[in-house]
């Protein structure tokens, strides 16, 4: 098994043939499988060497095999590649595919030899037993350096990986096992081998039973250390010539009806995400009205206000076009000069993460802006953890001054306080608060930390019922399809979904799907790449409907301020499952009745075991479909 995985055995001519075939979509491949980019291997070479073995696709929507067989026969179809069998003696490889499917049978033979198992080097009982339980896909996607080295992952784990405390699958933690079984360490036995051969039967655990929150807490560093680490990865600040900004503003402001200066945490024209899509829509709406839109974002993002006092390099977008990176005071000076006399303006703060509040306030004041909107996309204006999570693990209401919750929280112990920083803006400017949901506004008002001139709720999307269809009889006959939507982020409840999948992987009542980005290797989950854009804002809703997802697990552990995904799931006809701390997700369920709120993870597990979730989801005789109506965002209040 070792040599046949060597990356060096993939021939340049085969890589070239694959590229020339048109069957391989490089951009799609690296987006679909994020580990490829990390591995640094040429994507086409990666596909030939590993992707194909893992059953990956070479491009969206097409079956890999037929096109490739024609174009790059050397790698052939998976069927032509005998999979190494670590237990049985090697048998004759199966007959090559029918000649009409291949242009070059000689190349197939070559491929067969390339991938043939080399028993002489692998005939050892440790290897064989470990191989039975080893998750190659997990290992190679989790450790791209191993993939890049082009060596047999099992051999790597046995020779080096376990000493480096790497894990052979999602079900086993090498470090945990070694920490808790000193006798195994003393014996010098490979811990995974020991676990399979003896430890499991002896009642030892392969990984800790402390839950995903324990992992987060164990890795959590003091805020100052987090910031120092993030800053250490930054390059030098880019400072563009002021003339670049000047020119952009001269043309961008000419003839404008009004000026809007807006702020967010990153470049919304380049990054994809819920808030970024909203900002693109908002920009278009302002442009449609003839307003000039100047948007500022930190060149280097940070999940905190930057209270260090360092001059921040801000990216400037004038009417959505990049106008260089500049210091706040330089922007203020150039903007001040370029402003046509009498042009009125407002500011819209979507996020000040990565910004400095004093520099922001000076910039606004020097442009003569006195009032604006503050969006409550997250809770960064009132707490150092923008998700309002204590130690990044749990939400139990706003952690108030003087409480144990706050005392325990690493984020509250930072030498700066977001609420205090934002209060400088509230003292100086007339700020109206815009919350994307009543649920988030309730949290804000309950915290009572900052008082805006007025509070408003402007939902990004409203769900409009579009009639109901009868629940299909087919759906009732097949396993319940449980979906996770979006990027597999911890605060969206991915670990809870993953644990369910691992526990119920063999339960015939369930089928698990991941719709979104960031495929996680080593999980028996059907993955559907879904990525929304301005041109297809409806992509997720459509994907939920197309995959006929019955239940969407949206186990957000923070009080979501909006959560478009919840709306997309409901609009796609799915039944939502969430916890009471999920903010607007729980509120959306309460409002639409399209889901259930379970008190905690124990209740979720119990419902899955008992099958009551399926009963809930399928008790609906009809599935209500909804249309998603988008709001005009800031313009709902500014015009």
């Amino acid at each position: 098994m070792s040599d046949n995985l060597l990356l060096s055995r993939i021939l340049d001519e085969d890589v070239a043939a694959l590229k020339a075939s048109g069957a391989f979509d490089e951009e799609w491949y690296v987006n679909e499988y994020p580990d490829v980019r990390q591995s640094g291997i040429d994507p086409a070479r990666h596909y030939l060497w590993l992707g194909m073995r893992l059953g990956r696709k070479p491009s969206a929507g097409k079956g890999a095999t037929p096109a490739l067989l024609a174009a790059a026969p050397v790698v052939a179809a998976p069927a032509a590649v005998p999979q190494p069998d670590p237990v049985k003696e090697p048998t004759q490889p199966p007959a090559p595919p029918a000649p009409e499917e291949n242009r070059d049978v000689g190349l197939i033979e070559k491929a067969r030899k390339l991938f043939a198992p080399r028993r002489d080097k692998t005939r050892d009982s440790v290897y064989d037993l470990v191989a039975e339980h080893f998750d190659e896909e997990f290992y190679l996607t989790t450790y791209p350096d191993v993939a890049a080295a082009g060596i047999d992952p099992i051999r790597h784990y046995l020779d080096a990986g376990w000493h480096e405390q790497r894990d052979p699958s999602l079900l086993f933690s090498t470090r945990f096992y070694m920490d808790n079984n000193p006798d195994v360490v003393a014996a010098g036995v490979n811990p995974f081998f020991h676990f399979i051969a003896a430890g499991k039967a002896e009642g030892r655990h392969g990984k800790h039973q402390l839950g995903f929150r324990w992992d987060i807490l164990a890795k959590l560093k003091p805020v100052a250390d987090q910031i120092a680490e993030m800053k250490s990865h930054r390059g030098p600040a880019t400072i563009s010539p002021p003339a670049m900004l000047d020119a952009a503003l001269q043309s961008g402001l000419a003839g404008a009806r009004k000026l809007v200066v807006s702020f967010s945490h990153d470049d919304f024209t380049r990054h994809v995400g819920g808030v970024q899509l909203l900002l693109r829509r908002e920009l278009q709406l302002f442009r449609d009205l003839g307003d000039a839109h100047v948007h500022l974002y930190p060149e280097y993002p940070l999940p905190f206000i930057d209270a260090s006092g360092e001059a921040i390099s801000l990216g400037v977008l004038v009417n959505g076009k990049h106008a260089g990176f500049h210091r706040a005071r330089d922007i203020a000076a150039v903007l001040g000069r370029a402003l046509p006399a009498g042009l009125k303006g407002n500011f819209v703060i979507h996020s000040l993460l990565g910004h400095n509040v004093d520099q922001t306030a000076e910039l606004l004041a020097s442009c003569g802006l006195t009032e604006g909107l503050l969006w409550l996309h997250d809770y960064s204006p009132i707490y150092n953890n923008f998700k309002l999570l204590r130690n990044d693990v749990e939400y139990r209401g706003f952690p108030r001054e003087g409480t144990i919750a706050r005392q325990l929280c690493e984020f509250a112990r930072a030498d700066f306080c977001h609420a205090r920083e934002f209060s400088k803006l509230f003292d100086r400017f007339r700020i109206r608060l815009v919350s994307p949901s009543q649920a988030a506004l309730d949290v804000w008002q309950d915290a009572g930390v900052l008082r805006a001139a007025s509070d408003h709720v402007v939902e990004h999307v409203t769900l409009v019922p579009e009639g109901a269809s009868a629940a299909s009889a087919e759906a009732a006959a097949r396993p319940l399809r449980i979906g996770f939507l979006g990027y597999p982020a911890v605060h969206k409840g991915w670990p809870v979904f993953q644990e369910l999948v691992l526990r119920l992987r063999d339960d015939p009542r369930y089928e698990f799907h991941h719709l979104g980005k960031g495929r996680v290797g080593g999980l028996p989950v059907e993955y559907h790449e879904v990525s929304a854009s301005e041109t297809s804002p409806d992509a997720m809703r459509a994907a939920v409907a197309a995959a006929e997802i019955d239940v969407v697990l949206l186990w957000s552990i923070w009080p979501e301020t909006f959560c478009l995904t919840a709306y997309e799931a409901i609009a796609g006809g799915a039944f939502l499952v969430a916890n009471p701390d999920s903010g607007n997700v729980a509120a959306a369920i309460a409002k639409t009745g399209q889901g259930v709120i379970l008190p905690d993870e124990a209740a979720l597990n119990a419902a899955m075991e008992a099958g009551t979730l399926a009963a809930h989801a399928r008790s609906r005789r009809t599935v209500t479909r909804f249309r998603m109506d988008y709001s005009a965002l800031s313009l709902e209040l500014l015009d």
Partner: protein
Amino acid sequence: MRVLCFSSFTFSYLNRARVLYQSLRRHHPDWHLVALMTDRIPEGMTLDLSQEPFDEVVWQDELGFENVNAWLFQHDIVEVCTAVKGPFIEMATKRDFDAVMYLDPDTCLFNPLTPIVELLETNDIVLTPHLLNPEEERTAIIDNEICPLWAGIYNLGFVAIRTTGEGARFASWWAQRLRDFCHDDPAKGLFVDQKWCDHVPVFFDKVHILKDPGYNTASWNVSQRNITIDDNGNVRANDGLLRFWHFTKLGPLGDVMTRRYAKDQIVVYELWRWYREQVAQATSAAVPDRYWAFGQFEDGTPIERAHRLLYRDRQDLQAHFKDPFSSDFVAWLRAEGRIAA
């Protein structure tokens, strides 16, 4: 009620004790806080009471022993720090207080102990058991049920008494026993100051066995207690408030036991994380690592437990070597081959 609250420790535990006293100051600013110390101030360190979170220090030589060095030598660090609790609690009952409370230096308050004071309105002695309910798993039975069978049903990291009546009678009895028999010798039915208190509910009246899970929570009972943060940001143990935690064994062993029994209760790990930081902040660089003034003879030779037991058992040695820390006794032990040459 006028309350004297004390803890017993050496300089190695000063950091933990500071965290305890800070929590006591926060919740009970009116209590008189005493540090009962069995140690000597490390060279180069000054103990400035105005900078410490306690009001008074009582040293081993203030406890009325005729020959405190001879008595002290007969105990290891755990035995002696628990033994001094007896004589001191008896002394404290004779001072101008209504109640005396003892807390181990590795405990910490998260909410006021007011309910204890209220209990002492009608009771004279309050004790907290190690375990409130039977365990179910075999490992837990061994760790948490069997262990108290030899170490004592009640955890003496906490005791509260009235300074009169049965409280005073208990204090005198306990003091007397601990002067003579505060030994770590489970085979003889002894486990320092703690095992003695198994007698308390029988020997004394007006004893309250506190079965509230909010008190004296530790790795040995956390499997039966649900530790959560409530909507007010306060910490709870089951349905009530968490009053104090016993952070026993700060280090890898404590971590293993906590993980074994707290399982996925995240708040427990958050409490420990916070406590570890507080202790680190309260640590004085001037205290050498593992410092204890009575861990070695005058000439610096380390004292082994066998030396202490020999001296404890042999009245002839006690009569001859009035100060067992002296170099005379070292010379004798060396001549006897009990200290390597």
